[in-house]
């Protein structure tokens, strides 16, 4: 049974208002709460019992799979391994995410390790949202790791969002791209209170014609801290670009440590990092349109993290 609190977690992380149709696996407090298969997407337990294996048949088009994780039991800690095998020429959307409701004093932690093996010319949109709530004093901790292996001509679009309620997160993303593979990553993070978020990307552009674009936008409010690390290795004729754009407010602190390494004369890599407070003129523009300073701030941040 999924109760109201859990339903809210599902809504926040997966935009789900109940049990989804098609392929899905809902994990609740470490147990499978429900699973659905489709004709072309299969979900099995891993042999070691520490997660699931999702297999998408070659040529599967326009299907989606939901694999939300919800934790409502205070003190629950887990590490989960999920493997995705995406067949050649498939075109699918994977909606993952973790919601923690912690009403107790013990820490709750979910570490999700997702490995993707994306076949030739397949396309994947991977959406991952992290959310936490609950009135308890226990920490809500999530440490996601995503490992992406993109085959020839494969394309992965990865959109991750962590806007509210996660006290501590270390997010790691590792990618290996074969020829003509394309990876686009868009990350949105907002931290407040005493939260800490670290994000680290490591991308190997191994095949000719491969391309990667990482855009990280974040807001650090109050006493929160964030770190952005990115390593991009251009090992072939490739293009790579990382952007870290951060707004700091109050006592928020952000550091960006980018590294781009071109190991091939035809590798073209670029990095851009901008950290600073909201520009005064942006606030004034919205104030001349009738918003108060606080409303202007909210509007600018909402747009920035949209």
């Amino acid at each position, binding site marked *: 049974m999924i109760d109201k609190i859990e339903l809210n977690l599902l809504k926040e992380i997966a935009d789900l208002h109940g049990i989804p149709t098609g392929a899905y696996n809902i994990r609740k407090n470490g147990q499978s709460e429900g699973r659905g298969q489709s004709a072309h997407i299969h979900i099995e337990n891993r042999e070691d019992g520490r997660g699931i294996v999702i297999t998408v048949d070659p040529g599967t088009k326009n299907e989606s799979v939901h694999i939300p994780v919800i934790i409502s039991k205070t003190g629950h800690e887990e590490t989960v391994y999920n493997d995705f095998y995406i067949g050649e020429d498939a075109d699918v959307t994977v909606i993952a995410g973790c919601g923690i409701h912690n009403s107790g004093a013990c820490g709750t932690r979910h570490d999700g390790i997702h490995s993707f093996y994306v076949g030739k010319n397949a396309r994947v949109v991977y959406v991952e949202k992290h959310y936490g709530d609950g009135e308890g004093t226990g920490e809500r901790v999530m440490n996601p790791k995503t490992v992406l292996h993109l085959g020839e001509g494969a394309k992965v679009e990865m959109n991750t969002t962590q806007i509210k309620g996660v006290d501590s997160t270390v997010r790691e993303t590792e990618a290996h791209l074969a020829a003509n593979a394309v990876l686009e990553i868009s990350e949105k993070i907002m931290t407040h209170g005493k939260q800490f978020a670290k994000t680290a990307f490591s991308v190997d552009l191994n095949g000719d014609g491969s391309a990667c674009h990482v855009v990280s*936008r974040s807001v650090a409010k109050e006493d929160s801290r964030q770190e952005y690390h990115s390593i991009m290795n251009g090992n072939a004729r490739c293009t790579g670009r990382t952007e870290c754009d951060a707004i700091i407010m109050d006592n928020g602190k952000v550091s960006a440590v980018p590294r781009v390494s071109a190991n091939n004369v035809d590798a073209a890599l670029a990095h851009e990092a901008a950290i600073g407070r909201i520009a005064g003129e942006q606030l004034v523009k919205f104030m001349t349109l009738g918003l108060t300073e606080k409303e202007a701030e909210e509007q600018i941040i909402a747009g920035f993290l949209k």
Partner: protein
Amino acid sequence: MLSLENVRFSVNTEAGKKEILSGVSFTVDSPFTVITGPNGGGKSTIAKLISGIYTPDSGRIVFNGEDITGLSVTQRAKAGISYAFQTPVRFKGITVSDLLNVASGRTLSVVEACDFLSSVGLCARDYLDREVNASLSGGELKRIEIATVLARKTPFAVFDEPEAGIDLWSFASLIRVFENVREQINGNIVIISHQERILNIADRIVVISGGKVDRAGTKEEILPTLFGQDSACSVLKGKMD
């Protein structure tokens, strides 16, 4: 109707206090007023004082009988004053439609947003979802800036050098935008401008020079005094006389 009454304004510089406006008084009571004059004379400062971005050292600003000198930018905006920036502000993630919605105070339908954009010569389909960032040209940003002011439908609007920073081609069509606006206004519009074609559609012209009102009057009175002689030169001439 808006009046400046003996407004003084100074800034602190490394060399000490520098007076930008030394007692400026004039009233805007006709539909279309153009403020002109040499660079550095204090024109943009007047626009910022009207919108509340700057506060005068002394003097009063009166809007429809109410003393608004102490009101904040937000309060003045709510009182019905709009301000178009000389250099439009760029954002990250804020779209044209976000700006138009905030400006109009509600979520506009595509048809309504289209009306505002087409009156500045832009097609809504191409622009509503565009981010207001560096990917837009100077001319496009200017038009969007003007559209946000039009969307507010306030009885008073001040445009700070709408021609600044845009190329000649964009300028020609911008003039048409203001000719259009001229037809539609039901309040007072103030434009700070150097352009003869904008001065040509004015009802009244105020010449600001050296931090003071040099002269003011109807277009017929002032326009002939502006061209054919360099205005900076005429100021010097006045001093020599």
